[in-house]
């Protein structure tokens, strides 16, 4: 017997009655003060537009080199996947895997699933909860913004060694930062869960 208007705090487990929220509002726990749920300021089409823009930039970011370096007439540049491959060939499989998963695989799968979930009218199908579960589980492992910071540190370190040539992918990753930040606020899993039926 599911009791949907109730919510239990993730942090202190107190059961409370859900209350309707104003647009953009956040409900907090009366016991511990942690945020319980929020109501998104943005609609489905806005989220979808963000996802598409991010997906296009993400594809371009992976097709073109991120940065190149030039020294004494020699030039070397690398794409993100090229960087993963170099690690792999250097017998650094664990590191290669870590970078591949956090910068390539997770954002790609997440964007694909988000687009599918927002396009499909079949939130009632059995696949929708699986897709959303996967998105929620993957989110801590998407590290595009950390990667950007790493890019900045690398550029500074390399600038002492050689001449740096920024690649197209660098600008794409830079543009993906605010997009993912917007997506984090626009995408509210609770709205999608609410549209999914109970099995019993």
């Amino acid at each position, binding site marked *: *017997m*599911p*009791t949907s208007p*109730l*919510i*239990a705090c*993730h*942090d*202190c*487990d107190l*059961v409370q009655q859900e209350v309707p929220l104003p647009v953009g509002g956040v409900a907090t726990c*009366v*016991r*511990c*003060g*942690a945020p319980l749920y929020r109501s998104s300021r943005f609609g489905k089409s806005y989220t979808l537009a963000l996802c598409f823009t991010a997906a296009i930039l993400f594809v371009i970011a992976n097709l073109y080199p*991120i*940065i190149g*370096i030039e*020294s*004494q007439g*020699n030039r*070397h540049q*690398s794409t993100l996947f090229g*960087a*993963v491959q*170099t*690690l792999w060939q*250097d017998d*650094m499989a*664990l*590191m290669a895997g*870590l*970078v591949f998963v*956090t*910068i390539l695989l997770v954002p790609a799968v997440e964007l694909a699933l988000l687009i599918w979930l927002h396009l499909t009218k079949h939130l009632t199908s059995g696949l929708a*909860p*699986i897709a*959303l*579960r996967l998105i*929620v*589980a993957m989110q*801590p492992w998407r*590290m595009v913004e*950390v990667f950007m*910071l*790493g890019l900045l*540190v*690398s550029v*500074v*370190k390399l600038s*002492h060694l*050689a001449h740096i040539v920024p690649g197209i992918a660098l600008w794409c990753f830079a543009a993906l930062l605010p997009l993912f930040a917007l997506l984090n606020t626009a995408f509210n*899993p*609770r709205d999608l*869960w609410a549209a*999914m*039926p*109970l099995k*019993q």
Partner: protein
Amino acid sequence: MHPHTAAALGLYACHTCALVSRPQAAEEVAHCPRCGSALHQRKPESISRTWALLITAYILIIPANILPIMETGSLFGSQRDTILSGVIYLWTSGSWALALLVFFASIVVPLAKLVALTYLLHSVQRQSSQNPERRTRLYHLLKFIGRWSMLDIYVVTLLVALVQLQSLATIKAAPGAVAFGAVVVITMFASMTFDPRMIWDSIKEKNDRSSR
């Protein structure tokens, strides 16, 4: 335990979709009627699993800081860099802001995260009733900052990929980087297996904000 917690009321709150439900008695392991996730009132074996991950991370953080994370080979010989020497290089070359950033992300945050999780686990095990709100906030801070430690992994990756010029130098990743990556991932798992509701399980009702 507070009488109006889901656990005290015999209710299950889904960790994935937040649905509160009362499971059928027939089920051996309850599953969420909406998203199908396995339901637990508290994360299973939270204390022992978090301890196991923490101890592993404590062991790995030593090679992560002592072993070189990358090796630069050039015409003038080879050079090995640890996490700390990378910070010092940034500092001496004049990039103080970045040096501080890397110092925090790679050295302070992983260690602080281990110490803070140890403190949280210990406080839960001795059923402390002090500052539950502050401990909950600490837990959220840990979850938020942990990922930024991955910074050095990406720096090494990019340097290795780019510096492959025979005329200049060749950079290779070294075992320290693997140990460091493992520390970051393992501490992230440790903060995920820790259940913040345990902090509140030993709090009496009178300490609550609602009845103050």
